[in-house]
Each structure stands twice: as C-alpha cells, then as structure tokens.
C-alpha cells in the first residue's frame, strides 16, 4: 500500500498511524512504521519465545511476526489482511517486526499523553482522536516479555 510510504515520509514526532488489530483501534508512532505488507505466508516453527507467531519473508528479509492476540485479543485466524511492519529496538539494536492488522490505516497527529499507572506495559501512552482515547502501542514491550497475557486487558 503506497499510502504507507507517504505516511512514512510525512511522519513527524507527533504523527501516529491508527490501525485496527482485532477489534481494537491502536496507534503506533508513524516514525516506527516501515510498510504495510500484503498477507504473505506465515512460516511457523517450534520456538519458546512468547508472543511470536513465526516469520514472514518480505523484500528478501526475514521478519518476525508479533502475536498480539494473547495481549490485545479479538483476532480470528482469517481476520487480518495485512502485516504492518515496524522498527523496534531489541537489545540495543533495531529490528523489523510485523503485526497482523486488519481494517484501514490512518495517519493522525496529536500529543501522546503518558499512560495511567495501571496501564499494561504494552501501552506507551494514549492519544485522543476525536472523542476517542486510543492506546499507543509500545512494541518494545512485546520483545522483553513485559507484555504477558496475564498483563493484558484481553485476559481480564
């Protein structure tokens, strides 16, 4: 989707991509977003890392796919139509990660507010979009094990 390329170019510090994961609207800092990829084949193999679904191959790179379902809930196996590929930092290094998403992506601007004390680790902050308050996703939390299903709202 070329619009994501435009989003990437237009990304500013206070720009966010609004996306649909399962039944939830989530925001991601636009500067982190690399591209929106079509639903290519997911390659799964045995592993012991929580919140990882497998990998996809995109533009000659092997990109790990984050399994957001245990944390965010609401996903059915056929419900995602794209992979949103974003940069995240793991162990001091930047690495691409893919999130299964559905629905439309939208670029919005706003000031992220810090999360409330009781918010789970995967929430970096909140963004007000119209009258709606949207969680801004902290992708790093998915790689540190801070976002466990027990920690999530989906399990409540």
């Amino acid at each position: 989707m070329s619009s994501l390329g435009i989003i990437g170019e237009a990304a500013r510090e206070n720009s966010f991509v609004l996306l649909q994961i399962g039944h939830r609207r989530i925001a991601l800092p636009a500067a982190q977003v690399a591209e929106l990829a079509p639903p290519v084949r997911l390659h799964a193999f045995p592993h012991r890392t929580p919140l990882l679904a497998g990998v996809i191959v995109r533009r000659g790179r092997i990109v790990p796919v984050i399994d957001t379902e245990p944390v965010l809930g609401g996903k059915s196996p056929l419900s995602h139509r794209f992979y949103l590929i974003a940069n995240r930092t793991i162990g001091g290094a930047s690495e691409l990660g893919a999130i299964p998403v559905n629905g439309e992506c939208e670029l919005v601007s706003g000031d992220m507010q810090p999360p409330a004390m009781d918010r789970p680790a995967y929430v970096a902050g909140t963004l007000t979009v119209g009258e709606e308050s949207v969680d801004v996703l902290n992708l790093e939390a998915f790689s540190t094990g801070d976002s466990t299903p027990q920690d999530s709202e989906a399990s409540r």
Partner: protein
Amino acid sequence: MTSATRLGEEATASGQASRRGRRSETVVLFIVANQMFAVAADSVHEIRSTDSIAGAANEIQHPEVPKVRHTIERSGRTYYVVNAGMHFGLPVSRPALVMILRRFRAALLVDRIDRMAEISGVYPLPQAFAGDDRRWYRGLAYLDDSVIPVVEPRGFLTPGEFQQLDRAQSEAARRDAEAVQA
C-alpha cells in the same frame, strides 16, 4: 543406510568449495512431527534406522532430561539419543531414524529424512527470538519458498545435561556391576 556414513565427508568438501563464493552449504532436511528442520550435513556422522540399532541401544533415565531415554555405542563412544520431538516440544510422533551427530556425543531420533539440499546461506535468527530457540538454532534457511530452521547440533544437550546424563550412566554401570557381583 550405509551410504550415509560418508555423508559428512562429502558435504564438507562440497561446502568448503562453495563457501569461497556465496557461503552456501549442504544441509540434511529432516522431518519431526510434520515439521521440517535442516542440519549442516557435515554435522551428521551417520543415519540409521531405529530397527537396525535397537540391539545396540541401552536404556537410561534421568528425570531432568526426559528427552533422552537411550544411549548407543558407536566406535567406542557413548551417544545420548535425544528425542527431537520432545526437544522441540512437538506432538508425539513415530521416529524411524537415528541421526548420529559428528563431534558431539548426541544422536537424534527423527521421523524421516526429506533430502539433502544446498542452501545459499543461513540467515541469523531475528533478535526477537529470545527463548531456548537461540540455543536450538544456528539461524534460518530460505529454501523452495519456505523458511526452515537450521538446528545447532550443540543445542540438543547443554553441558549441564551432559553432566547429569554422564552421572546417571555411571550410576547405572555401578549398579549393574554390583548386581553381577551379588
């Protein structure tokens, strides 16, 4: 499967030649519980059917290493036979082959060998993988539109597990000797 005995030597020669170029290497593709894995061919010493080595296998049990239930003697060395399905946490399958590794005192129970293949290189495992998988795999291979994990032979048994198994085996040998004396 006698031809498999020289598998490693042939693969090493092939691998060295091609490594000058694209760092390609020859791998053995094997299947466990319908999941395909690759292992460097020069890490494999020998492949036998479970039937053919059944008589040479001895039972061993250690509660903390349940994936090993047998040892086999080959060329004067004792190899611990690791059930690859249990190691990777896969559903129970019916292993038909034993893949005896080179340089490590371990052998693998696998369902079947798919084939040998030349891969153009091993992609590093993404940093997102942070569990035991980092010990299990050398990296990933892309072959025939599939991503296949390339196993790390040393990852099948940790040094600690080797020590536990060595102790269990010594204890079993001591008990056997005492039983003979009695």
